[in-house]
């Protein structure tokens, strides 16, 4: 019979026999095998749990950078010991490649202490919850500059388990589930990842191993990474911005810090000007330092990220904008403070 299989005989067997057909004399050793196997798995898991931050720090420069920047961000207070207000830049690769940190720090050294926390492939939700965690755990910079492209502001994505581990507060999990529309399976994975170093780091560890195994893996990774659909429908973009900008404002008010949204330069229309207007309406500063299309293609490395020349121009504009903000603040201090200025007025 064409569809017959030799396994059908096995299917009809009603009495489960020893799976490998081994004699019952193996019972004792199988029991020992179970104990050894479970003990071994426990040791492996514990070993991974304890060593994964070390492994990752050893394998990855990026991880070392993020860990250092995270530590610095967590310790920030409104002013440094010498009285300079602190600025924390948050964002993804658009920030990392678009702003030359050292130049910016040097440029503003006399007035501001600038720090950065950049994590690649992050979107709005990573940072909204990331800021909540930073602030809840005692970080208190004077100014937070969140750098996101407009489609990233509207995106429903987050960095997954790594986000749950590094940027999410345990008590925020129900809110994350609601905001990201997660099912229970992902919710439970986030729960475990929040508490486990290994679950939070395993994606990065795998990436490092693949870089060691496959020459030019980074080039390939760019192709095979999940490229989720960009949010480019202006109505979705603006309605999401209308919902999310007030979330940032409320966060700023709750912790008495200043939060501004910085939109990096783009080649194409990204509706940043409409979002800036929306920011004005909602009392959330949105900085668009170059209108869409102003920066020519020659200033971009790949159509999205700025090259060295582009980032030099953008960094200078950002420095100027931060400086302008300081003088604005000085003027406002002498007048009636807005809600967002209360914190700094109290200093």
């Amino acid at each position, binding site marked *: *019979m*064409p*569809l*017959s*299989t030799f*396994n*059908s005989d*096995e*299917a*009809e*067997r*009603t009495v*489960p*026999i*020893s*799976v*490998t057909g*081994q004699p*019952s004399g*193996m*019972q*004792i*050793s*199988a*029991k*020992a*095998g*179970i104990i*050894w*196997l*479970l003990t*071994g*798995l426990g040791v*492996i898991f514990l070993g991974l749990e304890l060593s994964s931050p070390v492994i990752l720090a050893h394998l990855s420069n990026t991880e070392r950078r993020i860990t250092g920047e995270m530590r610095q961000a967590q310790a920030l207070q409104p002013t440094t010991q010498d009285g300079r207000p602190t600025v924390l830049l948050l964002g993804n690769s658009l920030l990392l490649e678009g702003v030359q940190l050292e130049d910016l720090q040097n440029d503003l050294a006399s007035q501001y202490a600038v720090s950065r926390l950049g994590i690649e492939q992050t979107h709005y939700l990573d940072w909204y919850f990331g800021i909540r965690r930073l602030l809840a755990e005692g970080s208190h910079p004077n100014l937070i500059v969140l750098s996101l492209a407009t489609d990233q502001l509207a995106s429903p994505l987050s960095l*997954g*388990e790594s986000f749950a581990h590094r940027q999410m507060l345990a008590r925020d999990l129900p809110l994350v589930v609601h905001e990201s529309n997660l*099912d*229970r*399976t992902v919710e*439970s*994975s986030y729960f*475990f990842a929040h508490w*486990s170093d*290994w679950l939070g780091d*395993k*994606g990065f*560890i*795998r990436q490092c191993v*693949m870089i060691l*195994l*496959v*020459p*030019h*893996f980074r*080039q*390939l990774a760019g*192709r*095979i*990474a*999940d490229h989720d659909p960009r949010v480019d429908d202006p109505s979705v973009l603006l309605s999401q911005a209308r919902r999310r900008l007030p979330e940032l404002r409320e966060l700023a008010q709750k912790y008495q810090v200043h939060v501004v949204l910085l939109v990096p330069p783009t080649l194409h229309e990204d509706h940043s000007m409409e979002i800036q207007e929306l920011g004005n309406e909602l009392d959330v500063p949105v900085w668009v330092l170059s209108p869409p299309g102003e920066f020519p293609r020659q200033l971009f490395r790949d159509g999205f990220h700025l090259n060295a020349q582009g980032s030099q121009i953008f960094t200078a504009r950002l420095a100027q904008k931060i400086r302008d903000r300081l003088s604005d603040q000085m003027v406002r201090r002498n007048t009636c403070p807005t809600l967002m200025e209360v914190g700094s007025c109290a200093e």
Partner: protein
Amino acid sequence: MLFDTPVYIVFLILVVTAYWCLGFRNQNRFLLAASYLFYGWWDWRFLCLMIASTVIDYFIAIKISDTEDPRVKRTLLVLSLAINFSILGFFKYFNFFAGSLASALGTVGIPASLPFLKIILPPGISFYTFQEVAYIVDVYKEKLPASRSFLDYALFISLFPHLIAGPIQRPSHLLPQVQRPRHWDSEQAFAGLLLILEGMFRKVVIADNCALLANAAFGGAFGKPSLPVVLLSTYAFAWQIYGDFSGYSDIARGSAQLLGFHFMVNFRQPYLAESIQDFWRRWHISLSTWLRDYLYIPLGGSRNGEAKTYRNLMLTMLLGGLWHGANWTFVVWGGLHGGGLAAERKLGIEKTASVSSFRKRMRRIFIFHVVCLGWIFFRAQSLSAAWAMLKGVAVWSWRPEFPAAFLFLAIFSVPLILLDIYLESNGGEYGFALAPVPRRVAYGLACAVVIAFLGANQANAFIYFQF
């Protein structure tokens, strides 16, 4: 709950621990509750549907068993089949048939606007429906007495390891196991743990990594289809779907063994098949035997002459294709396999032990590529996308990422090829199954280490969950 997530591991540990502390009847009650929790984890509404379907078949089976009148028996059988296939058809095929009918009417000049519904497919509906149908048919044919205990019957349908994507269990195999006490068997439990570890390896290391390549290549990330893109996408998908489904089946079987149940083997090195017929003896065995026993044979099998045998073969495979999903691509996939089976029968090609080792290898390579041809249709979003992919075979283009991509594919497919060759040679159900205990422990731990370092980052749903 996905098998490859931490929550499932915690769930399994808790269930197995509590289960073996209970007496037989309480074990069944507890397992039923655990299975419903497992299923309802996605959406409790789907659980209601499954329970309703279980209740209906439970009573119909008892009625069939109790009645003497063959006409009443037959009516009840038809009623049950109609209910089961209506539920399946509504959730799975409503939009497909409505769309196909509308476009068919449109082509003959009758514009029709048929309603399209936003229907979410309940997980595992195809699997538990087939299991219920098998039960009703077996009771009707008096191969099996109807279960008088709702608890036992409901547990047979919903036992969590097989609930979402099989293996589709035969009532005569599983129901008696549910109905009588089970005893702890260390050898079976040890093998179960190793099956789970190997299944995890197949799923999160092989399948999920190959999925990255297959998704990118089918999604156009490597440009328009050309020979390298077609090879990359097809091979990657071939290893993805095999790793995914065989991994799922291994975890299901391993989990069942920890609870004292035995499930049928679902895969036996399918890419080492020497004919299409041989492939179906090795691939998704629980479905192929189901189709044989509940569709091909009732249609007449090979009993009514050659022409009807070919018709039955084609019908079985076309419906088997459609079972996978509401898309013409699955019908074409089924048709390709049906055509292949019919051609082999016509030409008298059968697996023979006498062919030389070289010819055997050549046959295997040939059949693997025929199967890959089918996978193009299986994976493509539409017939036109599949056709575009096929046309790419005649186009040559090269990209700098291809060497890395093919190396990546080799890293995640060669281990499974080697494992299959090894299993084929010694007949084991998993790596080192016949080796002494220490070597099996070492194998299990090696799988765990590889999973830890090379497992794909995020849990991906098993492909067969959507069927």
